[in-house]
């Protein structure tokens, strides 16, 4: 273990560098306020940041092939990550600039206030939605089409075991991986979206009903939700999936339907809590009283009076809930009890190609396969979370 002493020495060096930076700054600028009032931690941070940046640039320009001719996988992955980061930043910036010039007055104003992370999130959501809707046109092959060549390596280079017909290669039974990745957007995201909508319909309407009626119905529903929430959701989902798999028997598609219902019910408990809390604040308002005195029915009260006034918190919750549902479904699929084959799905793809990661030192592109599918999941949740974070930040009134 010589890493630890090296690390300590580096930290000491950075600390000394920070002190020198502050001291030299004070002397060179004649005690300018910037350097005079600079805490040591800030100077330390500057040196650390500069050091990291310099190291990254140096590492980025290392050769991708070692002297022995094998790929220098660490550099390859680092270059991909940096390139992705730069492209993402530029895309988000251009997208925000576009949003500021094109569109209605309202959307222009929205884009003007938007931080770069949020515009990146919006862009990601749009791209995913587009891919999911037009998967059949975008994918070069069908998701269930089986080709004669199995285990074709990614890269499309015939010399290294690839095939130009399959840019990402094929899996163990000869299905095109690029097509399955694209169809995965349709299946995984689509199913998660349907599940979230169902959870919102269920939890939202019951929550508002409990808030308006109160009394025993409220008590019964709230206690039931308390009990359901006392079991960790992934564990409960796995338990119920065991039973559902016995019910579904050999009907694989039925299992997917059961999964949607199970996750929708489990997640609707969280929606119920929020909808009830928001609803309770609204039902005491005067305009609800007025509507009640007018003799309006329950449906009118819930959908015309309460719902429009509860949209903002519910919308933010929808984004968060979608992330949770999406991650739960992906996790279930990864564990092998979620979306069932032959439907293409990202969680299953990660599980099937996970061993490839061990070949990173020989073929970085092959090792990237499981990360590509897992990264597709991560990218969407990160994007949605960026948007939700911004929405919450805006509605909370910008605290310090």
């Amino acid at each position, binding site marked *: 273990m010589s*890493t630890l002493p090296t690390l300590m020495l580096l930290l000491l060096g950075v600390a000394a560098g920070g002190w020198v930076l502050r001291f030299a700054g004070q002397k060179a600028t004649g005690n300018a306020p910037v350097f005079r009032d600079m*805490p040591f*931690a*800030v100077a330390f*941070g500057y040196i650390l*940041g500069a050091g990291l940046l310099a190291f990254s640039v140096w590492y980025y320009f290392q050769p991708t092939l070692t002297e022995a001719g094998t790929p220098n*996988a*660490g550099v390859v*992955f680092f270059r991909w990550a940096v390139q992705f980061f730069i492209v993402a930043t530029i895309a988000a910036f251009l997208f925000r600039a576009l949003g500021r010039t094109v569109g209605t007055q309202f959307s222009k104003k929205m884009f003007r206030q938007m931080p770069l*992370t949020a515009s990146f999130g919006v862009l990601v959501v749009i791209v995913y939605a587009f891919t999911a809707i037009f998967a059949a046109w975008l994918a070069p092959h069908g998701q269930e089409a089986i080709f004669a060549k199995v285990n074709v390596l990614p890269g499309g280079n015939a010399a290294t075991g690839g095939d130009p017909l399959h840019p990402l290669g094929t899996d163990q039974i000869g299905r095109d991986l690029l097509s399955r990745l694209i169809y995965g957007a349709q299946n995984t995201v689509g199913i998660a979206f349907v599940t979230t909508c169902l959870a919102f319909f269920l939890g939202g309407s019951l929550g508002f009903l409990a808030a308006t009626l109160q009394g025993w119905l409220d008590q019964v529903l709230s206690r039931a939700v*308390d*009990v*359901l929430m*006392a*079991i*960790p*959701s*992934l*564990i*409960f989902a*796995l*338990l*119920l*999936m*065991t*039973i559902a*798999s*016995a*019910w579904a028997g050999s009907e694989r598609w039925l299992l997917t339907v059961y999964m949607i219902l199970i996750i929708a019910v489990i997640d609707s408990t969280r929606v119920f809590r929020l909808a009830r809390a928001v609803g309770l604040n609204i039902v005491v308002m005067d305009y609800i009283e007025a509507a009640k005195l007018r003799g309006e029915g329950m449906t009118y009260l819930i959908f015309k009076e309460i719902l429009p006034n509860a949209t903002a918190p519910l919308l933010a919750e929808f984004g968060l809930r979608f*992330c949770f549902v999406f*991650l739960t479904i*992906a*996790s279930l699929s*990864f*564990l*092998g*009890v979620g979306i069932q084959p032959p439907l293409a799905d990202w969680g299953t793809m*990660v599980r099937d190609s*996970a061993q490839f*990661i*061990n070949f*990173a*030192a020989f073929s970085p592109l092959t*090792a990237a396969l*499981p*990360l590509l599918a*897992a*990264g597709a*999941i*991560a990218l969407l*949740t*990160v994007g*949605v*979370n*960026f948007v939700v*974070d911004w929405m919450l930040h805006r509605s909370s009134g910008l*605290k*310090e």
Partner: protein
Amino acid sequence: MQSVIRIILQRLGLGLLTLFVVSIVIFTAVNMLPGDFAQAILGQGATPAAVESIRRDLGLDQPPITRYIQWLSGALQGDLGNSFAQANFASFVGADSGVRTTVAQQIAPRFENTMFLAAVTACIAVPVSLVLGILAALFRNSVFDRATNVTTLTSISSPEFFLAYVLILFLAVLNPVLPSLSNIYDGMSFGERLEKTLLPALTLTLVVTAHMMRMTRAAIINLLASPYIEMARLKGMSPMRVIVKHALPNALAPIINVIALNLAYLITGVVVVEVVFVYPGIGQLFVDSVKIRDIPVVQACCLIFAAAYILLNLTADILSILSNPRLRHPK
């Protein structure tokens, strides 16, 4: 003081009641399985006599309420029944050799492993997130704050297996520092065990640190507008001292709460991470049992997970009452 004890007892009672109801939910859910356990074990070619024998052996000929009481009283005494998958088939057809793997035997070593993993994670995650949170609050709205904000938001919203494979790629495959498979066995030295546990623990740390760090930052920043912080600043205290001595003690209640909640979250996250690293813990056993429909094991794991979850939430509740004088002395 009297009222504190009363509140805590009240919460404890409520927790026990919840656990009781949860056990009913788990039992009912499992009993909604179509057909019969006996049929499920023996498959299609079962003779009626064999089915009848198993049914008697497992006590399936009794009404559900009796079975529930038996299961619950057994569980309370640490007897969680026999595993189907490990069942000795000879015993079912009469020739009982007396050797059976009980669920408790299967779970006990794995439970210890899972607890070890959770403990290692907590030891890394809690200090790191507290320090990061305090630093982010100190240098709020700076480059450092924004960078940590974006990084933690990314790690909190990535699926566990993504983080796990990225860590495997960089720390096990490209730079072989840590083993990517955690095969824990009896008689390992502590250091060896720690080394094998470190990679799963780091993954879980990435998952939970983000939330705890963000809550620490938010709790401290919420307080910074208070008059007494203004006073401390005007006295000429350094920003670090203001935060550590004045803001932190008052922000402790929400922070403790969020730490306990995240430890509870660890229990769910542990399932996926254990599967990725083939870590012999309860989560892995649970997933394997779910796949082969080993009902007693599923039931027992579920009960343990739910109990741990309820217990940690209860702890969060009680600690936040104890650390808040306004809740300690309700009017």
